[in-house]
């Protein structure tokens, strides 16, 4: 029995010794004055020191980096506690300096160590230090730490951006149940509500008086189908003011693709709406101005035929009084009167046609427009001695709203003609040239009626701007600008130099249908 125990003990001792020799840890036995009592093979291999050389020596004398006071304190505490004390790699880095022999993938020169100080022999005040290589872990931690710093940095940026968005972008968020879950600061400032007053409210229920039934249904459908949807909504601020928003529903998903709710981005279009209404009023005024212009042109056109009728009538009257009226003269006079009145009537029809807005775009010859459609202006040009030169490819067609274009052209040419009343010139001309470009065609209308000052040029397309002293409404070119840019989807600019003025129009060959508003 006793023999068995001895055998058992020696076997245990053998196992312990073998384990201590071969374990992948440093094992060091010290007393509380730091004198070395054991130094295992692992330590021998890693420090290049032999146990027989270091045995009985002071550990802190061999390794001068060691803080003697701290180590003694830890050893005493372990002995006093009957429980281990520790050094950790994360705070103390290492106890025994061992160069890391792996060159790649490490940011440490010395092996990072966890050290457990275990009470070993209480009578002799001996402790065992178990040293574990934690370099890999420390590397991972260092990497993690740098990533965490990066993430924090990004997070700060993100928060900053979120703050900016909150301050600048108008939006509210709805949860899956369509209840208001958040509102941006920017939106709250426009509607004068506190966030708490609106949070948790059902969006559609809250806006039920502001949205018509049809729109409510469309919004609900879009929300249910998690679709993007745009609409206009009128709502009231806390102060009772009416405000118009252009709203866009945008479904919100998390990183895993789960539906979180819907964000409603809003744009305040109240001012734009008011502006559009004002613009409509200006356009209406400009239409009546155009009518006035038309009447004056009709009057102009009528003057000559009317005086012709007048002359015929006077001749007939005199001949009757002198009893010299023969049947032939009478019939030819009647015929002349008849044809002249027919011409008068046609003039009205022509003008009415031109000033009636087209519902549909049509295809027509540009040369025809500059030739026949402005016949009445041609008369005026002849009277004033203005040479009218047209250079348009014969077969060039354009597909657009014809009458709108005619109105604009009339306006531009009429402006040129009127300008000549103010100047004395011998070689008056108005030149029209059309150039075919790849994407569009360019029309230039040039006159030499003295030109326009640069300061004035900047304002010619503004409403109610006029240089004409008596009969200008200041709406002619404004209307042209509106028609060309908005209805005909083109561009218009005016240039002036050396006494000439050129109006340049760019128009698409084919206007896309449905754009007429």
């Amino acid at each position: 029995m006793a023999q068995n125990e001895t055998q058992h003990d020696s076997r245990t001792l053998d196992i312990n010794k073998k384990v201590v020799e071969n374990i992948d840890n440093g094992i060091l036995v010290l007393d509380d004055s730091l004198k070395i009592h054991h130094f295992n093979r692992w330590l021998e291999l890693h420090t290049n020191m032999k146990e027989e050389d270091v045995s009985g020596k002071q550990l802190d004398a061999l390794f001068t980096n060691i803080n003697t006071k701290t180590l003694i304190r830890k050893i005493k505490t372990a002995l006093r506690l009957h429980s281990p004390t520790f050094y950790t790699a994360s705070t103390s880095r290492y106890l025994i300096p061992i160069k890391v022999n792996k060159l790649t993938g490490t940011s440490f020169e010395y092996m990072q160590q966890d050290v457990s100080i275990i009470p070993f022999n209480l009578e002799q005040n001996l402790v065992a230090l178990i040293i574990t290589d934690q370099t890999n872990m420390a590397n991972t931690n260092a990497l993690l730490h740098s990533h965490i710093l990066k993430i924090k940095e990004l997070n700060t940026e993100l928060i900053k951006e979120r703050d900016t968005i909150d301050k600048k972008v108008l939006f509210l968020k709805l949860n899956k149940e369509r209840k208001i879950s958040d509102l941006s600061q920017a939106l709250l400032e426009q509607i004068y509500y506190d966030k708490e007053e609106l949070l948790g409210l059902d969006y559609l229920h809250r806006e039920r008086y502001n949205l018509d039934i049809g729109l409510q249904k469309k919004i609900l459908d879009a929300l249910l189908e998690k679709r993007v949807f745009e609409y206009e909504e009128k709502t009231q601020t806390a102060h009772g003011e009416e405000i118009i928003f252009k709203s866009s529903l945008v479904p919100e998903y998390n990183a895993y693709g789960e539906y979180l709710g819907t964000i409603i981005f809003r744009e305040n279009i109240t001012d734009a709406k008011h502006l559009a209404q004002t613009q409509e009023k200006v356009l209406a005024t400009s239409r009546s101005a155009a009518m006035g212009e038309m009447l004056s042109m009709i009057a102009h056109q009528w003057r000559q035929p009317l005086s012709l009728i007048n002359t015929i009538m006077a001749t007939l009257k005199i001949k009757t009084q002198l009893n010299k009226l023969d049947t032939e003269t009478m019939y030819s006079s009647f015929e002349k009167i008849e044809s002249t009145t027919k011409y008068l009537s046609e003039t009205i029809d022509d003008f009415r046609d031109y000033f009636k807005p087209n519902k549909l775009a049509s295809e027509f010859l540009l040369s025809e427009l500059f030739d026949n459609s402005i016949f009445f202006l041609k008369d005026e040009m002849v009277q004033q001695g203005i040479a009218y030169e047209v250079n348009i490819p014969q077969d060039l067609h354009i597909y657009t709203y014809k009458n709108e274009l005619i109105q604009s052209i009339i306006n531009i040419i009429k402006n040129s003609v009127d300008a000549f009343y103010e100047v004395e010139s011998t070689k008056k001309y108005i030149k029209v040239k059309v150039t075919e470009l790849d994407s569009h065609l360019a029309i230039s209308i040039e006159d030499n009626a003295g030109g326009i000052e640069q300061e004035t040029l900047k304002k010619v397309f503004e409403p109610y701007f006029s240089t004409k002293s008596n009969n200008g409404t200041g709406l002619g070119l404004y209307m042209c600008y509106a028609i060309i840019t908005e209805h005909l989807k083109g561009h218009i600019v005016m240039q002036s130099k050396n006494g000439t003025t050129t109006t340049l129009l760019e128009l698409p060959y084919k206007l896309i249908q449905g754009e007429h508003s």
Partner: protein
Amino acid sequence: MYTLTEDERDVLQELMNVAYGNATAVVADMLDAFASLSIPKISIIQTEQLLETFDTLKSTSYFFSTQAFSGEFNGESAFFINKESAENLAKHLELESPEDIDDAILELTNVLTSSLTTKLAEEMDTAVSFSLPSISQIPLAEMHDVVTFKHYSQVIVIDTDLNFKDQQINGKIFILTKDESIQWLKTKLNTILELLI
């Protein structure tokens, strides 16, 4: 969910007092100064309450260290010490580098955890072993993000103050355990109670 009866709490308090007496002596030795530990206040709370408790720790920056212990009675201890106290500790130990301060806090954590749980285990006829403690310094605002706390359902809170003659070092230690350890603890406490009667 477990709660301690008044008797159980009394026994635990008694055991803790003994354990703390031991800890005080060790801490005094370690710090080479006369130290006293206030009589610990013991309670069992839910983890959610724990996070609320952290919120009431008013100081902005806390050192926070944890140490796991294993055995029949197992869990993790969490030790909180504010910046001012940590600095006082460092001053007392004549430590200068931040690493040394961290090391000293870990040592204090280890001493408190070991004395408490070893003594407790001893009284309850079992043994515990300890892992290396670890430390982090986190703002209280981020405490909710410490996911490990969420693994524990209930927490034994042992609230104590360490007092030194010349400077105050205040710390709080929380023993975090899972339901089965609390069940085990209750059984043990009742065995002790029966022996006493």
